[in-house]
């Protein structure tokens, strides 16, 4: 497919937004320099949600059409989503230490994001334990759909349980509370991370397709 971005474009996009986030954009009026963590923390978290959404859609398509390409997309996206969730949790913990004074708090969004991490770790573990290719796809697809049920819970947990975590600043009713220059940098970071995600997704799908082809070569002839 021609739509997949090349690796150099992903590196360039992420590199330039990182330089802008660290050196060009002014510091936040309230939080100062520490707020620059947002330019890597928020895209990681958003892309993790997007990745799990892609897993959901690909799982639905696999169950409907039985095409292994969708299953490859589902597992690839789940693995990348898991990595991004882990990075969002760690970068969030660092941000938390700097602003709240502690690495971890039983804040609802933090906790449910950690649970989301465990859900998709379970998804990958279950897949690994099933030898039959088609059954692995079916079970993975079902779990991918059920697991995604937790994503809205994560997002709305801020509103449900009202914890320490700051409420949404961009996607909310009314104008965003963030300064416009900072918002543009944040959106640019999200776009660059999305390009990186797309590149990783294609590579990870290639890996899955290669493994499937190797497994096919192992099967008895006839």
């Amino acid at each position, binding site marked *: 497919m021609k739509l997949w971005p090349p690796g150099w474009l992903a590196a360039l996009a992420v590199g330039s937004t990182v330089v802008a986030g660290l050196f060009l954009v002014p510091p936040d009026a309230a939080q100062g320099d520490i707020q620059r963590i947002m330019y890597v923390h928020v895209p990681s978290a958003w892309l993790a949600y997007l990745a799990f959404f892609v897993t959901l859609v690909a799982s639905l398509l696999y169950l409907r059409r039985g095409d292994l390409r969708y299953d490859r997309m589902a597992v690839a996206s789940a693995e990348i989503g898991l990595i991004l969730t882990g990075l969002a949790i760690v970068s969030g913990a660092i941000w938390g230490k700097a602003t709240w004074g502690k690495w971890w708090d039983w804040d609802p969004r933090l906790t449910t994001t950690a649970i989301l991490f*465990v*859900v998709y770790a379970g998804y990958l573990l*279950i897949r690994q*334990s099933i030898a*039959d290719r088609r*059954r692995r796809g079916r*079970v993975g697809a*079902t779990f991918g759909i059920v697991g995604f*049920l*937790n994503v809205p819970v994560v997002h709305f947990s801020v509103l449900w349980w009202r914890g320490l975590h700051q409420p949404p600043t961009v996607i909310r009713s009314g104008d965003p509370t963030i300064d416009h220059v900072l918002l543009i940098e944040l959106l640019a970071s999200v776009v660059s991370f999305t390009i990186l995600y797309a590149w990783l997704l294609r590579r990870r799908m290639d890996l899955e397709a290669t493994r499937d082809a190797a497994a096919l070569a192992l099967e008895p002839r006839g």
Partner: protein
Amino acid sequence: MSILQDALLLARKDLLIEIRARQAAASAMALAIIALVLVGLAVGPQPDRLRALAPALVWIALLYAAIAVAERLERTDRSDDAFGGLWLVLEDRRSIYIGRVLSLSIALGLLQLAIWAVAVLLLDLRLKPEAMALVPLAGLTAVTAASAVALVLALVSDVGHRPLLLPVALLPLLVPTFLAGVQASAAVLDGRAGEAPGWVVALLIEAALFAGLGLLTFETAASPA
């Protein structure tokens, strides 16, 4: 036979096996009592702290008991390829899912009430008349949890390390049920009955989601390779 008649028969089979063998309930209850005693020992003789922790303790004990019961029922079904026979015989295979939800709901509901009874004794809980609301609440949480457990059982039924993977797959999915169950029970126990309906609605939504997904995907998920 209709799907519901099949499901009722299968649920009856599960419960009869359990009544006669008494393996799942006994081990689940033992697990729950051990959990309550261990936490009691860890916290020490501080009745107020233990009473405050009671709903969470009961629910943690219940989750582990649920895993023990589910694992036992599934092992019975999978031995001698009994499940394979069921799969071939049944007209509508969703009856296996419904039957499992029914038997698990009854088992988990009774288990929850039994664990509450033990908790009243061990944690010195002072029950008010409103605590009777724990009975319908146990029923609702049991149905919610059973809908999820039966679905996850179908997913991990024939994986290599089922006893290990069942909690890994199930417990994170049950977190909303756990939270809603703990908060609703705490509200009932503390006499804050006005807070319970919100959590009851959350439990109903979760039960509908799990049961709906279970009915839609069970046949695909549980289909033998």
